[in-house]
């Protein structure tokens, strides 16, 4: 157990040092709160604002998780369909790669028009779209990038395309899929909050940050960022855990840590 948790210590130590320095510098140079509040002020604001923050965090977290799940499932399923029906690959995959390179978050105001400016679905839609592309592209890559000899071996054993998909392509794609999940998890929180800046219901972290900032209550805004970070970190940790338990063959493999 000690060795498993050992890698956690260095970042924690460095984190504590940075936060202490931050506190010290702000105090020493008497930096104004609206520029950079002290960590102690931010933590005080978290306590002070706990009731609205808890509600906002819960709502934003729900949007992020719902969008994450829908985006991940549709991304992975569409990648499967495209891999199974190869003729789709030439048209759909380049299009997805191109769309992935566009700033999808810019769609937020448009989704507001589609679903209504106060509707939570416009925020969820942004998260879905943001999550979808990396999952779709990475999973598709994993399904396609199988060693040609392995496919030849399967064919020499008279395996059907469906059998090859089930026994070779899907397990081969699993690490790619799980990596994309680990990337998409924190992305979903970012997408949810940015989407909330543009509209949707008001009792969310996004509006909480913009409103407090506009009233110069910067410690409160920072408190909401702390909550958002905690949600992002939790989702990241969860997906990293899923990654570990679903690939037992990678345990201890030094080349793919």
């Amino acid at each position, binding site marked *: 157990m000690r060795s498993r948790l050992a890698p956690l210590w260095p970042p924690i130590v460095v984190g504590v040092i940075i936060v202490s320095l931050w506190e010290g510098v702000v105090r020493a140079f008497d930096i104004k709160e609206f520029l950079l509040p002290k960590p102690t002020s931010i933590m005080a604001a978290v306590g002070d604002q706990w009731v609205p923050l808890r509600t906002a965090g819960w709502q934003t977290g729900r949007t992020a998780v719902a969008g994450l799940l829908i985006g991940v499932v549709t991304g992975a399923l569409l990648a499967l369909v495209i891999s199974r029906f190869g003729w789709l690959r030439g048209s759909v995959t380049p299009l997805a790669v191109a769309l992935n390179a566009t700033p999808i978050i810019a769609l937020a105001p448009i989704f507001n028009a589609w679903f209504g400016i106060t509707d939570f679905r416009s925020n969820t839609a942004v998260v879905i779209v943001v999550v979808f592309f990396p999952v779709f592209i990475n999973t598709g890559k994993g399904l396609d990038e199988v060693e040609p000899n392995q496919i030849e071996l399967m064919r*020499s054993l008279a395996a059907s395309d469906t059998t090859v998909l089930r026994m070779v392509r899907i397990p081969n794609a699993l690490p790619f899929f799980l990596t994309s999940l680990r990337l998409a998890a924190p992305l979903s929180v970012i997408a949810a909050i940015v989407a909330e800046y543009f509209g949707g219901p008001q009792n969310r972290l996004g509006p909480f940050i913009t409103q407090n900032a506009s009233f110069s209550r910067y410690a409160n805004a920072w408190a909401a960022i702390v909550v958002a970070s905690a949600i992002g970190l939790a989702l990241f940790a969860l997906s990293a855990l899923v990654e570990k338990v679903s*690939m037992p063959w990678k345990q201890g*493999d030094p080349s793919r840590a």
Partner: protein
Amino acid sequence: MGEPAIVASGVTKTFNHGTDNAVTALTDIDLSVEPGEFVSLIGPSGCGKSTMLRIFGDLISPTAGSVEVFGKSAAQARLDRDYGMAFQKAGLFDWRRVRANIELPLELAGWSKDKRARRSSEMLSLVKLPDFGNHYPWQLSGGMQQRVAIARALSFEPKLLLMDEPFGALDEMTREHMQLELLRIYRQLGTTVVFVTHSIPEAAFLSDRVVVLSPRPGRIHSIIGVDLGRRDENTRESEGFFRKTTQIREALRSVEAMP
């Protein structure tokens, strides 16, 4: 000896046939392999050795000509699971333990779990890895991985073993060791082997016959019979072995020198 293991007649392969970048890899190959025979294909790289092996195994089809395997079409032989294959890359599946890799062909053939376990244990001892069944491939050295790949190729006792430079990535000592192991297993199971290599001593050491291919386009230059009796470590230092490697080397030189 009964019907031949392979009869190839007039086999020609042109990749991208009818386009600007058409490549003729093989022309007019006639070759017959007897059951139980060990035949090597040797020739400069790009002369069509792998292409020939893939045509025998029905992984690609010839542009012209025909291949019969045990009196059937190559396609039928493949569907009947007559082929075991091994390549230069061991190509083990990362997510399967060694034992499960060896059992893969048995799973595809619908063997029961018990039968599979019994056979994979036998194969593990055959390739001298009895204690590695529960390891994952990455825990094995290159030579050990290649032995697992051979165990996988042979687990279901295919009638015909097709091997494409299976020892090409191994160091010289491991390679010589693996050659002896392969011959031992081959004798024990009595399969037929078609073996692609570009190593002259390897071809001479393993084969009953060595097929020398010439490039651009690939054709059979000559077929050299190797009658060295039962091979062992001393074979490599024998007079007869030296004469055969010289003969193969000279054939390859005349092939390389051709315009």
